[in-house]
C-alpha cells in the first residue's frame, strides 16, 4: 500500500514536471513566434507606410519652368524653376542634350513654395529656334517648356 502511494506521488511529480516543461516549451516557442511576428509586422508596416509616404510625395510634386531667358550676346540660357507644391524637390533640367547640373548625383534642391534659378547653360541657339526644355525631379516627375529663341 505504501509502495503504491509512493509510486502515485512520484507519478504526480512527473506530471507536474511535464506540464511545466510543456508550458515552458509552449511559452518559449510562442514567445519566439510572437517576437518574430511583431518585429516582422512592424518592419512590414513601416516599409508600407514609408512607401506610401514616398508615393504621396511623388504625386504631390508640383513644379513649373517659370521663366526662360536667352542672352544672345553671350549664348547663355537661364532657367528658373518654381516649386509650387507642398514637398521639397530635387531637380535637373535638360535642353537639347545638355543636362544641368551635369554631375549625376548633383541635383538642385528647391524647397516648397520657392523659386530658384539654375546655373547658366552655355548654348548656341539661333534666332527663332525652338528649344524644348525638360525639367525632371529625382522622384521621376517632369515638366516641359517650349521656348522660342528671340
Amino acid at each position, binding site marked *: 500500500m505504501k509502495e503504491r502511494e509512493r509510486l502515485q506521488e512520484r507519478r504526480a511529480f512527473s506530471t507536474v514536471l511535464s506540464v511545466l516543461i510543456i*508550458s515552458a516549451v*509552449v511559452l518559449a516557442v510562442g514567445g519566439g513566434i*510572437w517576437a518574430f511576428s511583431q518585429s516582422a509586422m512592424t518592419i512590414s508596416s513601416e516599409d508600407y507606410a514609408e512607401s506610401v509616404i514616398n508615393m504621396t510625395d511623388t504625386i504631390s510634386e*508640383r513644379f513649373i519652368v517659370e521663366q526662360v531667358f536667352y542672352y544672345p550676346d553671350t549664348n547663355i540660357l537661364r532657367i528658373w524653376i518654381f516649386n509650387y507644391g507642398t514637398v521639397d524637390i530635387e531637380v535637373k533640367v535638360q535642353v537639347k542634350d545638355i543636362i544641368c547640373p551635369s554631375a549625376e548625383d548633383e541635383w538642385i534642391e528647391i524647397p516648397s513654395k520657392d523659386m530658384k534659378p539654375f546655373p547658366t547653360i552655355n548654348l548656341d541657339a539661333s534666332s527663332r529656334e525652338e528649344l524644348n526644355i525638360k525639367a525632371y525631379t529625382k522622384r521621376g516627375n517632369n515638366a516641359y517648356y517650349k521656348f522660342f529663341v528671340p
Partner: protein
Amino acid sequence: MRTTSSSFRRGTSTVMGTLIFVGIIFTAFIPMLFVMRQADTLHEIRKHELGILDQERAREEINFYAYPLEENPDETPDQDELILSIKNEGSVPIKIVNVWINDEEHPQEVNIKSMETIILDSLPVILQDLTSYTVKVVTEKGNVFSSEAGILYYSSSVDGWYTPSLGICVHIDNFKGRYQITIIKEAIIVGYYLSDHDEHVDIEEIFWVDLPGTYFVTIEKLDPVLGWVSVIPPYDAYSCLVASFKANHGRVRKWDIRMRLSLLFFAFCSALDELVTFRILSLGGVELNPRVAWLISINPLLYPLADIAVIAIAYVVDRLLSKSLVDSLVGTWLIWTTTGIARLLCVALSLA
C-alpha cells in the same frame, strides 16, 4: 485520474497557444493593419487635396496689361516704369507671387478676389533701345500668364514703347450705363462699339488698327436727358499714339474667313445657276439674259468660263485687300454674298 491528468496537460498548452495567437493578433497584426490603413487614408486625403489644388489651378484666369506709367494724359509717360493692370477673371481668388519683366523678377504678395481688378505699383525697367520686353505674372498655384498686349518693344526713335500688334484697348470699369466708343483717325471712324443695353460689368474692347499713328478715342455714355455725353471731361477724346511699324494680322484673318465663305457661296450659286440654265436650254428653253445668251451663242463653255474668271478676280481682289491692309471697312464679302443671292434668284426664276 490518469485521464484527468492527460486532458489537463492538453488543455494547458491549447489555452496558452490560443493566448499567444490572440496576443500576436492584437499586438502585431492589428497594429500593422491599422498603420497600413492610416497610411492609405493619408494618401487618399493627400490625393483629394491635390485634386482640389489642380482644379483650382485650372480655374485660375487672369487678364492683365502692362503699359508705361502715365499719371497725366498731357504728360509724356515715364518710360522706365511699367504699370500692370490685372483682372482676376476666374472664380477663385488668386495670389500673385512674382512678376517677370524679361529676366528681372519682381516678387509680389498680392491677393486678387474673383472678378476684381487691381493696379500693381509701378515696376522699374532697365531701358535699352530696340529691345523687346516680355511681361509675365506668376500665381501661387503655379500659373504663368503673359500680358494681353503681347511683347512690348522699346525704341527711342518712335518715342518709347510700342507693340507689334496694333490695337487700342478701351477698358471701362464696372459702371452701370450704356456706352459708345469711337476710334477716329484723320476724321475717319476706324472703330466703333455700342453696348447693347445698360452694362453691369466691365467693358473691354480691343480695336485693331492697321497703321501706326495718332488715333482719337471718344467714350460716351447715354444720359436720359442730355443724350450721349463724354465720360472724360473736359476732353472730348483721348489722343492715343499707336507707335509701331509692324502690321497687325488679327483682323485680316477675320475678314479673310468671311471673304472665303462669301466666295464659296457665290461659286456654289453660280454653278447651280449654270446647271439649271443648261438644263432648261437642253429642254428647248430660251436664255432671257442677253449677255449670257450672246456668250452661249459663241460657245456654251464661255458661260462657265466667264463665271470662273469672275470668281478668280474676286479671290485676287480679296487677297490683295487682305495683304495691303486697306481699311477693312470695304466689305467685299457683302458684294459676293449679294451676287450669290442674285444668282439664286435667277435659278428660282428659271425654275418658275
